[in-house]
């Protein structure tokens, strides 16, 4: 298992190198926006990974509430944290792209606002897990994970439901949407690379969470023994 993990990390690093080369060198410069459009190759895959992480959190939260499985709870904690990391990247790279293209850093349009709300929901999830004490913390976190996920499809659909400042869907957005083939290749390579990074980070954080659970259980056992004496 350890060798497989190391091989996957090496594969991910190689993929990252290749996808960066695709995004910065191979992909053609967009005619209207110029080089700033290349932020798209990082911004969208980060949003994708954040969405997948929150979906994993949603499923793991359901499994935890259903079976009271501690592994599911560890996976929920890991995926929420990694999701917040990628959502933070989305919220910072978006305004960096917007400043030269729109002339403003931020606007309260539906896509941007719902994404900020999504980030706040999962930050509150992490704060709850970190600072709440008592046996109900994991149950409350799981409930928040399930209801918080409602915002993910809303974020996805905002640019289809409303007229927003945010660009309309590049893919799956009707007849006038789509990417040039070279751009599409660069985008798909980055999507794959970022997904692999997300898997590596969730796996590492999951192992860490299980170790922390072990330490917590050992402390509780020691405290019980101390109390019994």
């Amino acid at each position, binding site marked *: 298992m350890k060798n497989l993990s190391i091989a996957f990390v090496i594969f991910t690093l190689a993929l990252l190198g290749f996808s960066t080369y695709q995004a910065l060198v191979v992909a053609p410069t967009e005619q209207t926006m110029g080089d700033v459009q290349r932020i798209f190759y990082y911004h969208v895959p980060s949003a994708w990974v954040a969405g997948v992480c929150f979906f994993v959190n949603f499923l793991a939260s359901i499994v935890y509430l259903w079976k009271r499985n501690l592994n599911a709870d560890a996976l929920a904690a890991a995926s929420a944290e990694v999701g917040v*990391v990628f959502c933070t*990247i989305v919220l910072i790279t978006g305004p960096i792209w917007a400043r030269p293209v729109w002339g403003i850093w931020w606007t309260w349009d539906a896509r941007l606002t719902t994404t900020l709300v999504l980030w706040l929901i999962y930050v509150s999830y992490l704060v709850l897990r970190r600072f709440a004490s008592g046996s109900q913390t994991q149950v409350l976190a799981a409930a928040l994970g399930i209801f918080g996920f409602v915002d993910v499809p809303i974020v996805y659909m905002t640019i289809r439901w409303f007229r927003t400042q945010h660009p309309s869907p590049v893919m799956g957005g009707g007849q006038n949407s789509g990417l040039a083939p070279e751009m599409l290749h660069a985008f798909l390579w980055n999507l794959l690379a970022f997904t692999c990074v997300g898997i590596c980070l969730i796996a590492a954080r999951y192992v860490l969470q299980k170790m922390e659970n072990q*330490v917590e259980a050992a402390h509780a056992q*020691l405290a019980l023994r101390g109390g019994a004496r």
Partner: protein
Amino acid sequence: MTGIVALKSAYAVVWGIQLLYIWYLVGRYRSVRREMKDLERSK
């Protein structure tokens, strides 16, 4: 902000945040390992 400056900034943000997070995970891993060793010794 010009396009190339924006691109470089976004690039730095993407990798900076991920590296910071990996650094945070490694720090947390070390502290848990230390705690595990202390617990084993106290047994």
